[in-house]
């Protein structure tokens, strides 16, 4: 019986962290600032871990946590130097009627607090890596240790990075606000970049043994869904969500049961999530109707063409190459030119493709990049130039940090 209630309590706490932590954090930040909000929320969750197994899970867990966290915040503020503004904060926290707090938790406007949290932790004045870390900590509710693991750094290093970021937000006065309309697109761009970075880290973990980290990709998709609803389906947010879903739909086919990577040309297409694909395509169509396409919309259109093709050979590579050309005109990412060359080789043949890839070899950002070696190896293989292909695969393997990707390249090499 006790084991049961323990399990129920732990599941309730997990659910709170996953679904409600960001909401409650956002509401607390509005009342007492980041440092105290996070400190008191963590303390309240610790109380839940201690009390819920014995006392049972409260009817509305988020209200319980909010009430405890508010009391903690009052205590914490009292222990600090009491400035006039701190005293005012204490009064607000202490005197606010329970019913009003509850109402604000339920309130629709409440979504605004969480949206503020998105914009604050993805603010351009925070270093790009740190934005990703803050988003995982505050929006996804990952523990500091989990965030450290995602970045392959020591927990103490990550804890210090997060503390400094919080201190910068408070001291430098990074606003806890939704940007004005004139700035929304640019600032939203920074939020979308963070979500895309989280997804890409989940899609191909830069280091470590397994190819995908589904949990991070899932998390990015979940946050993109939340964001989309919060910004009332802004076309850029819709496009990113569509892009993530169109790639995420292939997750089960991308790895074999023993965790080995399967490339697009060898994936079992019936294992793709076709319901997810058709939903993503309608999201993309909605975003395209709203205005000129963002880079995410173009990338999504490319992924949609892959997802629509009955087989690799029947893919509309001419259209894909044209879309990469469009993308290249909008971004300066050299990897886009490489992708364009590869797609073009499916139309013009491997000899032409090899010429195009060779022309990119000295481009900054691609020089020594494993994707460039891998593309070259593949084109040489298609041309039947096995010996050169072998050494290109070797170079690609040496430049790849992900172990599953290395094993995949080695298998292709050994098949020559």
């Amino acid at each position, binding site marked *: 019986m006790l084991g049961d209630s323990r399990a129920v309590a732990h599941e309730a706490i997990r659910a709170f962290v996953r679904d409600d932590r960001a909401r409650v954090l956002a509401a607390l930040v509005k009342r007492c600032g980041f440092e105290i909000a996070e400190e008191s929320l963590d303390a309240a969750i610790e109380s839940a871990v201690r009390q819920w197994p014995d006392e049972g899970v409260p009817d509305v867990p988020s209200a319980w946590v909010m009430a405890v966290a508010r009391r903690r915040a009052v205590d914490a503020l009292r222990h600090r*130097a009491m400035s006039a503004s701190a005293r005012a904060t204490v009064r607000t926290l202490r005197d606010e009627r329970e019913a009003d707090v509850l109402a604000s938790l339920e309130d629709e406007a409440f979504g605004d607090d969480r949206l503020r949290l998105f914009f604050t932790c993805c*603010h*351009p*004045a*925070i*270093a790009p890596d*740190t934005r990703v870390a803050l988003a995982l900590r505050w929006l996804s509710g990952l523990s500091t240790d989990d965030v450290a693991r995602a970045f392959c750094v020591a927990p103490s290093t990550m804890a210090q990075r997060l503390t*400094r970021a919080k*201190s*910068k937000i408070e*001291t*430098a*006065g*990074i*606003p806890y*606000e939704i*940007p004005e309309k004139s700035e929304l697109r640019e600032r939203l761009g920074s939020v979308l970049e963070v979500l895309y970075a989280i997804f890409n880290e989940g899609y191909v973990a830069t280091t470590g043994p397994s190819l995908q980290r589904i949990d991070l990709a899932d998390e990015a998709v979940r946050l993109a869904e939340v964001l989309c609803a919060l910004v009332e389906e802004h076309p850029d947010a819709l496009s990113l969500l569509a892009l993530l879903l169109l790639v995420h739909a292939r997750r089960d086919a991308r790895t074999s049961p023993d965790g080995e990577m399967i490339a697009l040309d060898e994936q079992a297409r019936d294992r793709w999530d076709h319901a997810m694909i058709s939903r993503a395509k309608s999201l993309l169509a909605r975003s395209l109707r709203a205005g000129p396409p963002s880079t995410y919309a173009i990338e999504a259109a490319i992924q949609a063409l892959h997802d629509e093709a009955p087989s690799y050979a029947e893919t509309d590579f001419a259209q894909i190459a044209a879309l990469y050309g469009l993308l290249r005109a909008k971004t300066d990412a050299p990897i886009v030119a490489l992708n364009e060359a590869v797609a073009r080789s499916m139309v013009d043949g491997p000899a032409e493709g090899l010429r195009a890839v060779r022309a990119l070899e000295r481009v900054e950002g691609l020089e020594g990049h494993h994707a460039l070696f891998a593309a070259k190896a593949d084109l040489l293989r298609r041309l039947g130039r096995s010996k050169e292909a072998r050494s290109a695969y070797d170079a690609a393997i040496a430049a790849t940090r992900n172990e599953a990707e290395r094993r995949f390249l080695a298998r292709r090499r050994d098949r020559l």
Partner: protein
Amino acid sequence: MGGVVVRHRGRKEQRTHVMQYVLLIYAAESRFANSTPAEGAAVMEAYGTYTKDLFATGRAGDCAALEPTHTATSVRVREGKRAVKDGPFAETREQLGGYYTIDAESADEALAWAEKIPGAKHGTIEVRPIMAVGGAPAPADASKRPALSKDTHKEYLLLLYEDERAWVSMSEAEQGAIFGRYMEFSKSITATGQFIAGEPLAPTMQARSISLDENKRVVRDGPFAETREQLGGYYRVWAKNLDEAVAIAAKIPAAETGTVEVRPVMDTSAYA
């Protein structure tokens, strides 16, 4: 704070032989971060005493203590596009932590005041003349300015970094045009009540740096650090939040050719 500007402007007209200097305090901020609360309070008290002594002479213009460099943001504008980056203009072993501006009759008098700054014991004080032109706009319409305060605004220091060789090699007409832009900028932030203080600095070849080694004064020619772009001036402003401070920074001409570092000013009212 506008009063500070009024005071030194008025005095300058009477005593034209007096030069203005800025004393830039460079010290390892990790020292302060790793100190106990008691040690931290002792440092603040030492600065409080020094500040009181300096202002009692009627020769001090303006001063500020800065928040550490991890709270800094760098702003550049290129081809009309603004680029905002986390962090200070340059990563150095010791960091700019604050400054005083003073009137002095000679560089030696300025050095004597620099030597007494608590930070000279473990850091370096750069002593640099302030350019004679004066960056402060006429304070005549002070009464019409909106009253800004700590309740709604924060203080930021905008540090202007530029390649000073470009300035030296300009014709007088070109220099005049840039000064015109600075005067216009200063006027615009004075009109909104956001201007607190601001000065253009003389080139680093006129700088001297002082530190204390076992209480013995060590003076050398040149700035605290040799960098490709140099601190050429500053503005101290009120802004609602970092976004507003960054927007102000992006309007400074130096943002188009160099970098403007935005640093929150420490609230030292508790130690005053």
